[in-house]
């Protein structure tokens, strides 16, 4: 009886959240679907009639489409790889006994508090600028020709900038996970003479798998839609045009809402493929 009561209560309590999110998903999605089947050019008078799947075909056959999917995957993959690897190392380091651990932790998590626009501006102007940037000065100090980061190593630069932003987040989650590691198990392994690398591979890493999954899941959600970092630094040139940025160009720069909306639908599909893939893993790992 109590269960009966709480089941309906539970449904009632879930309702606001579910209804809000359903609305937030369905209303824009329906409108985007609607636009995607139209020739809709605000600067040419707006709605110019139905065009069937024209926009969808045009969007994928455009010479910019596949490179943009690739750029998206490279950026997301690169950032995930860097943040997870360095995140694990950093978490292990921060877990060691040391002086001033609290302050170091503060230093490490600070980048997470900086807004993406500011991050991008600071890196672009004060570090990666080939004339006045600090990295250029550093290169010159070693007698090297400064790297033109944002043009010659554009994708790498974006990955560096975004990784700097997300490394603290990964480190924090991984650190909490490491701290919950059973120290007796570790000690036992140490007594048995297991070398550090083996201890890391057989005890620490398996213990962290859950935390790593979560880092990957959350970061992927955010990374798929990064925009400010590209808008501020390269504006999509030099091969940094991600799918999100391509849609931005179609909708806002070309003011072709129909075409951009079709792109939006593709992005939703791509995101859901990745999500499905991730959730398979996460679902297994979550309980």
């Amino acid at each position: 009886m109590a269960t009966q009561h709480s089941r309906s209560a539970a449904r009632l309590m879930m309702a606001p959240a579910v209804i809000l999110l359903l609305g937030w998903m369905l209303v824009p999605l329906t409108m985007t679907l609607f636009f995607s089947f139209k020739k809709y050019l605000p600067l040419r008078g707006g709605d110019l009639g139905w065009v069937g799947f024209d926009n969808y075909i045009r969007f994928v056959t455009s010479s910019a489409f596949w490179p943009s999917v690739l750029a998206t995957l490279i950026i997301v993959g690169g950032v995930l790889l860097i943040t997870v690897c360095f995140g694990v190392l950093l978490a292990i380091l921060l877990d060691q006994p040391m002086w001033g651990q609290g302050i170091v932790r503060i230093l490490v998590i600070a980048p997470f508090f900086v807004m993406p626009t500011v991050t991008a501006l600071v890196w672009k102007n004060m570090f990666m600028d080939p004339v006045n940037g600090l990295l250029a000065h550093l290169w010159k100090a070693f007698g090297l020709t400064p790297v033109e980061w944002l043009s010659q190593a554009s994708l790498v630069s974006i990955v560096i900038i975004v990784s700097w932003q997300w490394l603290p987040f990964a480190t924090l989650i991984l650190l909490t996970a490491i701290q919950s590691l059973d120290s007796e198990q570790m000690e036992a392994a140490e007594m048995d003479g297991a070398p550090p690398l083996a201890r890391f591979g057989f005890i620490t890493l398996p213990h962290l798998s859950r935390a790593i999954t979560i880092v990957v899941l959350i970061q992927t959600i955010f990374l798929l839609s990064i925009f400010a970092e590209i808008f501020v630094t390269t504006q999509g040139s030099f091969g940094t045009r991600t799918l999100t940025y391509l849609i931005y160009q179609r909708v806002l720069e070309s003011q072709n809402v129909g075409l951009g909306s079709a792109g939006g639908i593709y992005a939703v599909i791509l995101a859901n493929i990745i999500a499905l893939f991730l959730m398979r893993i996460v679902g297994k790992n979550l309980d």
Partner: protein
Amino acid sequence: MARAVTTQRKIINTAAAWAVGLLIFFPILWTVLTSFKTEATAIADPPVFLFFDWTFENYKVVTERSDYARFLWNSIFIAGGSTLLGILVAVPAAWSMAFVPSRRTKDILLWMLSTKMLPAVGVLYPIYLLFIKMGLLDSRLGLTLVLMLINLPIIIWMLYTYFREIPGEILEAARMDGATLRSEILFVLIPLAVPGIASTLLLNFILAWNEAFWTLNLTAAKAAPLTAFIASYSSPEGLFYAKLSAASTMAIAPILILGWFSQKQLVRGLTFGAVK
């Protein structure tokens, strides 16, 4: 007890950790330092680190040109409002997921997360039209709602994982004592979950504060937060490193300070159920 640690190893750890920490923090430090330089010193070759004539000129210029207080207030209002509103909606939802789980609970949770994957750029036009219809453009209310919806899945997930750690028996005992559902949540669950709620609040405040797409595109003058403030300094004419640094420092300082003071609370709940 704990592993014996030689002093030597502790020294090495400390040195390594501090080096990495300072390296990661350096861009922020450099920005803050640059904000106290003149434009000429800011681009000096070789770069000047600490020994220059410190000046507040850039801050003066920036505050004279922009109404910083208003941008700041809008940021606080929007980030705070959306977080509180989000918690209000999320607590009941997370309660039912954690304590009355069904077969579909996990699916619902993952579906909620998937709504975050909707690309903002793709739906800007529809949302803009809706906002015009509802008169929400350039209003703090509209932006608060949007940011609440964007972050709601994260809030629910965090609370859900935190609530699950709380033994259901405690809640049941309260129910046996005749507590209503409302008081069960308000007076039993929430006090038990304070650390989790605190870190959820903090994380979402940060996320909302730093959101730079909707905040820029749905506002003009009245509701524009600090992200718009930064957009007016990003590449003006001529030398601008020092002024840009000052504006950047002003935009990130409030959240940085908040984050530092509350990092213990933030860290404690930031597990997303990763710790078992």
